[in-house]
């Protein structure tokens, strides 16, 4: 397996508190990583920094062949690294429009966008709620829309924050299946979670965040 993302230094402090002090993190293509750690240990912050959504105090990392430092996160990288929130925000439009949002930004033509969105809706098992307003969806359905919205953009690195928190067993199993499928195309998935169903998945790589360091 080839290295997709290599972090050599990542530091983040909040006031006097050092939240993250990562000296090495190596993520390989085709693998799923479970990022664990206590509440407040900085899992979400780490994922957001990797996705360029949160500034780091110090950062030295290489994604594919691009070097990134704390001075600036290249916009182009956001097209390859996607972060999915624990409670994903769905735009006030239709499910299809949510899934098409990122495609439109990438200049995909409308007919192709529709086809891709429909395929993603079927992939995520959302066909039955296709015409339901996003605000009326359940927590599990919202997660599935968010995953479909990310997956359709074929990110090379998908960072997912607590995707199964507060979901029932059936919904959790569906989410886990979707995550495995996403990683199967030589992409990499990092899941911040407490869920044993994800942590105990066969072949999953464990990353534990403790006192700001990956162990």
């Amino acid at each position, binding site marked *: 397996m080839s290295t997709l993302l290599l972090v050599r230094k990542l530091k983040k402090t909040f006031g006097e508190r050092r939240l993250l002090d990562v000296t090495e993190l190596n993520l390989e293509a085709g693998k799923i990583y479970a990022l664990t750690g206590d509440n407040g240990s900085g899992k979400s912050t780490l994922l*957001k920094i990797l*996705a*360029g*959504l949160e500034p780091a105090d110090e950062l030295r990392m290489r994604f594919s062949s691009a070097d990134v430092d704390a001075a600036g996160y290249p*916009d182009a990288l*956001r*097209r390859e690294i*996607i*972060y*999915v*929130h624990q*409670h*994903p*925000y769905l*735009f*006030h*439009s*239709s499910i299809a429009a949510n899934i098409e*949002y*990122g495609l439109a*930004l*990438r200049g995909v033509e409308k007919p192709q966008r529709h086809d891709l969105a429909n395929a993603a809706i079927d992939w995520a098992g959302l066909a039955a709620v296709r015409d339901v*307003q996003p*605000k009326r969806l359940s927590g599990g359905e919202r997660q599935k829309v968010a995953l479909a*919205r*990310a997956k359709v*953009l074929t990110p090379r690195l998908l960072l997912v924050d607590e995707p199964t928190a507060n979901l029932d067993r059936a919904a959790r199993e569906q989410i886990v299946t979707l995550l495995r499928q996403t990683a199967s195309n030589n992409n990499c998935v990092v899941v911040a979670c407490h869920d044993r169903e994800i942590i105990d998945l066969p072949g999953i790589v464990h990353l534990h965040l403790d006192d700001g360091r990956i162990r």
Partner: protein
Amino acid sequence: MELSAAIAEAFRLLFSFDAGLWNIIGVSMKVSLTALLIATPPAVALGFFLATVPFRGRRLCVIVLQSFLSFPTVVVGLVLYVLLARSGPLGELGLLYTPEAMIAGQALIAFPVLAAFTLAAVQGVDRIVRETALSLGASRWRASLTTLFEVRFAVMAGVFNGFGRVISEVGCAMMVGGNIAGLTRSIPTAISLETAKGEFAQGIALGFVLIVLALGINALLNYFQGEGGMK
């Protein structure tokens, strides 16, 4: 005139399309809608800026903005009067007692309402909408536009609220408009004048128009908010 007779006369004026009455309604609508059209873009931009850009003194700006929400409209009228009066710094423009002066006054009155609604709405969703848009590949500019689009119903509520405030305000319209028949006589100034003269019919008819407008605006807002953005 007895109340029942006044009400009957009010409806006769309304539905016989009395030219004087409908001219007053026309002036009100023209002045208020133009004022909103002028005030909305900069007010929404300011609200968005205050909600999203941290800077020294931002808190003070928000406090000042919110204070303007409860500013008496007659004070806005007074300030404008001093500026536009013949001896004032803008006296040469000859705008006092014109619809343009009323538009300026109403735009100033609507501005803080629009900005405050936008500020509150954007503050409520900014971080997660912005992060979602950025993570899906939006540029910072596009993420800002997406955020604004997501709060469109709250901004629309601000516009309707601003409209309600300006179409019914009497202090500023009276001071800088002068209540000139056919030119600057608006619904609230006409109600005030006619009532003072003991002519209740036109006042009741215009009051009825204001109530219908208020109901219509709220119904429209509820409809759009209920739709929740679904086409």
